Every structure is written in structure tokens, then in C-alpha cells.
């Protein structure tokens, strides 16, 4: 697996007005599969949005490897999107190509073909023409992952990709992420509340505790004591 660095977080503080996580130092490398755990309001989404460039850091830097410009594909929480919009799954995925679209120019045939490829990659081509908001939670998640892939990312950031879906769907989404990491070499950072899925699939696990990002040793996490500590972080 290629281990070149994609993004470096240096002394990073994230938050809206005051910092929710401080002094984050992390290097994200090609092929990383990072699970990010933390209780509600701990700043998981804020950290993801800061890496994606949606929010500005309160302090410190997010630096991307200059060899790979525009490397981030962001998958938001599916509930955060405006349901008034009458868009098909295909149209949602097409948005991923807008970063490369020239002003006044239509989306090219090559880009449309690439969108179809992305849909095939996430097994979503069968329901892609249906209205996005009429799809099931799992189908919508696949469409959003396809949209992030249409950006041609080196780094995929996913905000609660398995929230609100049943266990088989959650597993199939996680398997899909493993496939993308293995076959495409894409680094993946995902936020979740699901400790068992994180333990099963992620290579590295981080937890946000007392405004700090802590790396958890996977082997340690398999011990009952550490899991109890982790549960204490969640439930106090």
C-alpha cells in the first residue's frame, strides 16, 4: 500500500467560536482507514468539515500534499441535505464533477461517463435515476459516496455513513469503503458512534475526549477494561 502523506494537521484547533478540539497533530496517508469516535457535540463533524475546507481552523493548519490538489471527497450526513430539491440520484452524483466544470460550459460526455462509473463502483446504477429523497437510507448513502468519488478524491471524509441504516446495510457500506480503499488506494476518515464497526473495519481509531483527539490502540480496545473506558467517555 502506498504510504505517501495526503494531509497534515498541525497544532490544529477546530470549533465555531471557541475550540471544541485543540492541538490536533495528525498525518493522513494514502490507504489510511481512520475511524473517529466521540460523544454527541464532541466536535467530530467540526473536525471533518475543517479538514474538508468547509470551516476555517481556529488555530493551526490543514496542509494538503501539493502533488494531489483537490484531493478531498466529503460525504455529509444524509439528513443535512435540503429535501425540497427534486433531484435524481444521478443528478446528485453529477454535482461531484462541478469542481472541474468550466464556467459557461456544460458537463462533458466524459464526465457523465465517469459519473456512471462512480455509480457502478458503489452498486447504485440501478436506482440512480429515482428521486434522491425517495431512496432508502442505505441507497442515499451510496449515492453520496458516489458523488464524493466523482470529485476524484485521494481522501474521503464521511460523516456518520452508517447512521440510521440497518445492520446489513451498514455492513455493506463499510465493505464498500474497504473496497474503495483497497482497489482505489483512497484514504478514508469516517465519523461514527458505532464502536463495533470501527473496531472491525478501521485501521486506526481516534476518540475525542476532553477536547483532545486521542489515538486508541486497536489491540487495547479489544480488552474489556479499555472498552469500558471508551463507554465511559461516551456515557459519562
Amino acid at each position: 500500500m502506498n504510504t505517501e502523506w495526503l494531509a497534515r494537521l498541525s497544532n490544529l484547533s477546530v470549533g465555531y467560536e471557541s475550540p471544541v478540539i485543540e492541538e490536533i497533530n495528525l498525518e493522513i496517508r494514502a490507504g489510511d482507514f481512520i475511524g473517529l469516535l466521540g460523544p454527541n457535540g464532541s466536535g467530530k463533524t467540526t473536525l471533518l468539515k475543517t479538514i474538508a475546507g468547509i470551516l476555517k481552523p481556529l488555530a493551526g493548519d490543514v496542509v494538503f500534499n501539493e502533488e494531489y490538489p483537490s484531493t478531498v471527497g466529503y460525504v455529509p450526513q444524509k439528513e443535512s441535505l435540503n429535501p425540497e430539491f427534486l433531484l435524481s440520484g444521478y443528478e446528485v452524483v453529477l454535482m461531484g464533477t462541478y469542481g472541474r466544470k468550466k464556467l459557461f460550459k456544460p458537463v462533458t460526455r466524459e464526465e457523465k461517463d465517469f459519473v456512471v462509473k462512480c455509480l457502478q463502483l458503489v452498486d447504485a446504477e440501478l436506482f440512480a435515476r429515482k428521486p434522491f429523497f425517495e431512496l432508502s437510507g442505505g441507497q442515499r448513502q451510496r449515492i453520496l459516496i458516489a458523488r464524493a468519488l466523482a470529485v476524484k478524491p485521494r481522501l474521503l471524509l464521511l460523516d456518520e455513513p452508517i447512521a440510521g441504516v440497518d445492520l446489513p446495510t451498514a455492513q455493506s457500506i463499510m465493505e464498500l469503503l474497504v473496497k474503495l480503499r483497497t482497489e482505489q488506494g483512497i484514504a478514508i476518515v469516517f465519523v461514527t458512534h458505532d464502536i463495533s464497526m470501527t473496531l472491525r473495519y478501521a485501521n486506526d481509531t481516534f476518540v475525542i475526549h476532553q477536547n483532545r483527539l486521542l489515538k486508541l490502540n486497536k489491540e487495547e480496545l479489544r480488552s474489556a477494561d479499555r472498552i469500558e473506558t471508551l463507554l465511559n467517555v461516551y456515557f459519562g
Partner: protein
Amino acid sequence: MSVLNEILSPDFLLRNSLYISILAGLVCPIAGVYLVLRRMVFLGIALPQISSLGIAVALTIHALYGVHLDTHAAEEKVLAYAGALGFSLIAIILLSFAEIRSKSNSESRLGAVYVIAMALSILILAQCPNAEKGWLNLLKGEIIAISDTDLIISAIGFGIVIICFLLFNREFTLMSFDREMALALRKNVVFWDVFLFVLLGTIIAVSVISVGPLVAFGFAIIPPLIVRHHVSSIRAFIVFSSLCGVVGAFCGFIISYKNDLPLGPTDIVLLGIAAVISYLCRKTIVFIRKIKTIKK
């Protein structure tokens, strides 16, 4: 049939009124669709009122400062356009950013803006009875005195706006559907938001000055309401809303002309009836589908 022939005749005296209401019917629903999609319908109520406050200020300013206008009608029109556009654009940019940033109290804020704009218009126009008369006609939706120049200016204004919507439809959709995605794609979100709001403000301002706030708001909101649940894409939503506005404007004109009714209110009541019929159709379709499912 004779009424239709009369209306469609090139020598028809009120042809400019017909053309301007059809233009408003065509373009206002485009603004309405975006206001509905971005859940800013209340902005659609407040904005025409602010625009008409701009007209009131513009029409009364000479009376307030004792300035005599030599070519009264022409200068009045220029002032009215400047007032409507200026007030609309400033208001839509301020209000829409307040909408984006604040998560609460937007309805009460817009309600307050609406009523204050209305009250201010009345107070300002009380200083100039002539302007007050013209403004009241506009408020009632009397679309009679439309000169060729008015029609051309409105058509140019609407034309520019339609071209911009055709050119930048994808950017506006991305920005409105998923702002965060746009930011992640390194798009200049503030620029595109301001640009969209400027276009919406222009549609409302030109419509208010042409057909009045009642008709502008009615054409902006009711056609999208009629069409919303019968279409499955944004393109169809925009096209059929505009089509609905055009048909409403044309039929409204015939009814108004035949029965000697004020045009604006006739258009709006007609669209209102169409909205009720559309709602009943939707309910009937849902009911029939339910029965079919039960039978299966």
C-alpha cells in the same frame, strides 16, 4: 371568441398590459421556485413590499426636498426603477444572509419587515398625494398604463435574468442544495449566493414596478405551489411553473377584460382556484393509488 380576437389584435389598446402580465407570469415563478426550494417563501412576501417602499420613496423624494421635476412622467419612472431595484437588492442581500446565519425567528423577522415597509410606504406617500394615487393603483394591481418603453425595459430586465438562470442553473442548484459540498469543491459560495439573490431581487423589483407587489408575489409563489407535487425534476418544476404563470396571466387577462375587473386580483384569484384544483387532483390520485394497493 370575439374577445379573444380583439385581445390578440396588434392594434389592441391594452396590448402592453397583456404582454407585461404574460412576462411577469413567465419570469416571477422562476424566482418563486428558488424561494420555495430554499425555504424562503416569506422573503417572497416581504420583498415586493420593500420594493414598493423603494418606489414610494423614489416617487415622493422630490416632494420631500421641494425639487420640481420638469419632465415629470419620464423622470418619475426612472426614479421608480431606481427605488424598486435599490431597495430590493439591498433588502434581499441583508435578509437572505440573516436567513442563512440565523436558525430561528425568520418568519417573525420577515413579518416585521413586511409590516414596517407597508407602514413606511403609507407615511412617506402621505407627503405627496399624486405619488400616493399612482402607488395605490400599483398596490391594487391595476395594470393599465404600460408604455412601450416600460414594456421594453421590463423585457430587457427579465431577459437578462432568464439568460443568467440558464447559464448558471447548475451553480445555483449546487449552492442551494448542498452549500457544504460547494465549499468543499472550493466554490466561491458567497459570490454565487449574492448573484442568485441579485437575480431574484431584480425579478421582484421589475415585476413590482410593472404589475405591483400583489401580482409579483402571487405569480412568484402560486404557480410553483400548483406544480410542485406533479413534477419530478427541477427543470420540469421551473418550466411548468412558468407555463402555469403564462396561462394564468393570459386567462386572467381575458376574464378581467370581459368582465371589467381589475387585472392583478383577477390573475391571483384565478391562480388560487388552480392551486385548489391541483391540490384536489393530488389528493384524488393518492386516494386512487391507496385503493389500488388495498385491492392488490
